[in-house]
């Protein structure tokens, strides 16, 4: 591969690395927001304080993604601490 395209590739990679770095905390926050959103709506079916069940039912058809996030997050329910270690820069 010739030098200019090599450099271009490296710059593009650098850009990707920097971009990911610039939103890593935001992505983590977003994940948790979606998780919590689903949890709150599910509360109607588990007897927790929650929005009236009919709101949850009305929204449920469009919450496929959020329910998935909720279930994924629940896999690590007893292993939360280390996930946040990368915020600390230690």
């Amino acid at each position, binding site marked *: 591969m010739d030098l200019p395209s090599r450099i271009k590739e490296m710059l593009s990679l650098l850009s990707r690395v920097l971009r*990911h770095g610039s939103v890593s905390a935001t992505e983590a926050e977003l994940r948790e927001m979606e998780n919590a959103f689903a949890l709150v709506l599910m509360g109607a079916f588990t007897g927790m304080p929650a929005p009236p069940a009919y709101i949850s039912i*009305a929204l449920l058809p469009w919450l496929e993604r959020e329910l998935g996030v909720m279930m994924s997050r629940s896999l690590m329910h007893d292993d939360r601490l280390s996930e946040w270690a990368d915020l600390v820069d230690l």
Partner: protein
Amino acid sequence: MRTVFFVGKGGVGKTTSSASLAFHLASAGGKVYWVSIDPAHNLCDIAGCRPFRGAREIAPNLLAEEIDMERCTEAYIEKNITRMKETYRYLGILNLEGAFDILRYSPGMEEAAVTAALADGIRRYRERIDCIVVDTPPTGLMLRMFALPFTSILWIEKLSEWRRTILGRRKTVNSILGKDSPYREAGDEAGEDPVLRELGVEAERASFLKAVFADACVVLVTDQERLSLDESLRIRDGLARIGIGISLVLLNKFRALNETGKRIIEAFSDRTVVKVPFVEDTADRKVLAETAAGWAELITRTE
């Protein structure tokens, strides 16, 4: 356009009273939509017609409808369950049919269905109607029905706000990561989000009903039984908690004032209590209309 709700313990003559008002106003020339949500299905007995579905003009100027609560709730749930079955068909969540059937018994489905039906009915007919007369279901459901828009609006607002924050964050991540973003398939436009749209629909319905309830005239029907007194007080307090006041009290099936009757008048001393005499033949429309003559204008007069 006025909305009048008839509330009271079962058996005190709620449907009969609402029928009185409906026939009275209709015969006076007003256009009336008379809707009964009471599962006791008395409307047809009183109106003297065979059971029918939907709204039907049973007398000149008088449109009547009997909302079958059970079928109404059934239909409401079915609609949602069907939507969910379509969406989650590929997700293999548990035993899909079984799980979603449980939703029938979710707390709040009845009042959700009923208020939805009520809202639809009012919206459909209010243009051509002068007065909507509503015969409400038994106390428990009636109170939950009234309370629903008030509690819902709060939840819906918070959920919408939260949803907008989520969409905003997604948009930020998408704009920076582009095709590297795990959210590129998930929606990030508030204008296109189905969840926000659904919340908007519910918000609109809830505020519509809130306005209707706030503006409505509530008539408490009771007789001189001890149990009726107790329940009437519960109704008054329950409605007061959501800021709805009782406009008029009808002391029904009245022959002579007894101890309980006195206590009723005392308890509602700040309201007009009208003694409505016992009506022998409740199927006679003219008699019914005349019964209301004594107090109908109290309703139309109040702000």
